[in-house]
């Protein structure tokens, strides 16, 4: 595994790609990297400093924590506050400010909120606490959704009746369509998600080429991966033949992971879901289907919340739609900081605001 990763961090390869990109005869190119992990890698390695000025990189909505709607955050916190419940969550969700509190505040006030690294940990907690309902907060895209589905299927086969999932899991292609239909921003090419595509393959992006004429390349997360994708996108634009290509062949096939896909359709059915900044998008949420309704926390518990309100001045929604870059938000780095975030994009390691803040380019860097 290690030599392969090192190849994709090889600086000679990366710099050769930069030269290739510079030699291309393109007009201004507006490229969107869908994934927050791509934004993080681009800033972490300072790739924008290497790219020609006419190649503009925009960060997209590909951060599961960031796109979770305020009302859903509030409902998750209300669920955690239900007496007797053990709430299991990925660590990133703890700090996301809801309208009234955050999960970490709820925990400090005595709620039983536990950080887990996988759904298997949550199942184990359910086995050890059979007298209490254990709810997994299912935030994620197609990458994590199969592990959530697997935990539900496992709980059913093992008759683990105190385990359930509050599913806020989402599908990426429908929101990509919603963004393009919105028409607010100009996009010439999309760096498609890497880990998501390992599950769903590259076929689901074909509508983007067919209906919008936009170039698509699935990319990995190392500098060589990303630069290769940029070069392939520019090449597609140059020859005027957009298509869906894969620059991440070591993890992604056009068909994706069939077994994971089967598991997803066994446990979930696509349903409309709310996205922060984007609104309700049809068929973009993984809802637990009737056959597994005994494991659906939404059907098991009555969740009551007050009216949801996004934090005053927070422009996470605009950041997620690519309307502004994080530093253009008036709260960025002044009021909204990683240690005390106003909005979710400053919380998650995959959030664009956190990446811009943590990996900020310095004045001396642009010399």
């Amino acid at each position, binding site marked *: 595994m*290690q030599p392969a990763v090192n190849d994709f*961090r090889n600086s000679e390869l990366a710099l050769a790609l930069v030269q290739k990109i510079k030699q291309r005869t393109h007009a201004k190119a507006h490229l969107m990297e869908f*994934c927050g992990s791509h934004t993080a890698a681009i800033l972490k390695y300072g*790739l924008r400093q*290497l790219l020609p000025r006419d190649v503009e990189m925009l960060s997209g909505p590909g951060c599961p924590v960031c796109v979770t709607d305020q009302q859903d955050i509030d409902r998750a916190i209300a669920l955690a506050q239900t007496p007797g419940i053990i709430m299991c969550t*990925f660590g990133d969700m703890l700090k996301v400010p809801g309208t009234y509190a955050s999960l970490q*505040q709820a925990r400090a006030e005595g709620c039983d909120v536990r950080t887990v690294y996988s759904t298997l940990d949550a199942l184990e907690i359910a086995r050890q606490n059979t007298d209490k309902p254990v709810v997994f907060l299912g935030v994620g895209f197609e990458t994590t959704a199969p592990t959530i589905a697997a935990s539900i299927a496992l709980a059913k086969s093992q008759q683990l009746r105190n385990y359930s999932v509050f599913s806020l899991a989402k599908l990426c292609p429908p929101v990509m369509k919603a963004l393009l239909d919105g028409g607010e921003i100009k996009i010439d090419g999309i760096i498609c998600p890497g880990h998501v595509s390992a599950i769903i393959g590259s076929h689901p992006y074909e509508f983007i080429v067919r209906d919008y004429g936009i170039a698509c390349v699935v990319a990995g997360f190392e500098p060589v991966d990303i630069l290769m994708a940029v070069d392939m996108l520019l090449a597609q634009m140059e020859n005027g033949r957009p298509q869906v290509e894969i620059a991440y062949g070591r993890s992604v096939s056009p068909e994706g992971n069939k077994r994971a896909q089967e598991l997803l359709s066994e446990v979930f059915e696509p349903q409309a879901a709310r996205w922060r900044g984007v609104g309700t998008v049809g068929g973009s949420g993984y809802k637990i289907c009737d056959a597994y309704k005994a494991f659906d926390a939404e059907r098991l518990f009555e969740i009551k919340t007050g009216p949801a309100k996004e934090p005053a001045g927070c422009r996470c929604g605009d950041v997620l739609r690519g309307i502004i870059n994080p530093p253009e938000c008036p709260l960025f780095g002044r009021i909204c900081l*990683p*240690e005390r975030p106003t909005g979710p994009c400053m919380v998650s390691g995959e959030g664009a605001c956190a990446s811009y803040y943590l990996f900020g380019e310095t004045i001396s860097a642009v010399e």
Partner: protein
Amino acid sequence: MEERILMAHGSGGKLSHELITQCFASKLDNQWLSRMDDAAVIDCAGGQLAFTTDSYVVTPLFFPGGDIGKLAVCGTVNDLAVSGAVPQYLSLSFILEEGLLIADLERVIDSIQRTAAEANVAIVTGDTKVVPHGKADGIFINTSGIGRVLPDIKVSGSNVRAGDAIIISGNVGDHGMTIMAQREGLRFDGDLASDCAPLNALIADMLDVCPQMHCMRDPTRGGVATTLNEIAAQSGVGMLIGDDTIPVRPSVRALCDMLGLDPLYVANEGKLLAFAPADAAESLLGVMHASKYGRDAAVIGTVTADNPGQVVLRTKLGTSRILAMLAGDILPRIC
């Protein structure tokens, strides 16, 4: 400030700093505390004493490369040694949870004995309390330590000067990733083990060849990135770090990649960062490479007059970015 203590207040990052400055330093401030160094240096007849304290709450109690007892001795020994002192006397205070196996306690005490012998320190006083089941996590240990400050040594987080070489004593991230792999039951092949070690002998050798050393600090919680930022702020200097000069064990790198973590934010328990005049770097590396705890030592950057309070990382690709202080807990990616 938050209304209640959050776990992030204990992560060693920004919230920990805020808690210390706003809650503790504002009320308890004095000439020793305000220096914010790893140990207080106190004048006494015939010289100076360094005095420090620390608490240990690690889960699991035993892990590859060490255990809570070894950690407690090394942590206090290292805090004294990086303050330019020869560690001499330690206190140990135990909070034990009802139900703890006596055999486990004995294992910890054996380990304390071995580590204290290696570090040449005496455990001279102690205390034990027992709390009901569920009110602690097996064993909590608090230690204090004192040591004699070597004459003519002046090391402090506020002494760093532009032009200083920045040296790390070896591979970073070993301790934190070992604990994470254990805690999360990640089965991982390779040589993953905590670097937990007493560094006083290594430091004595370093001060021998470089008595004009400006600062040393052990990058524990928050990792190398956080310690560099603390010192940049304390000394009002900038730092330029070369990403490809920082030694990281391949197994640690691989596990970090898998979880989406950066080894520069991961805790170390047997490493030190040294800031010394550049012309002393070569002789320092010489004595460090000869020690078993400094074999992989490397110069990782220089102190600059530009960008005071900021640490800049230069990548292998020739680009630069800020290397920020840890903001909360380090978390694996989910996407």
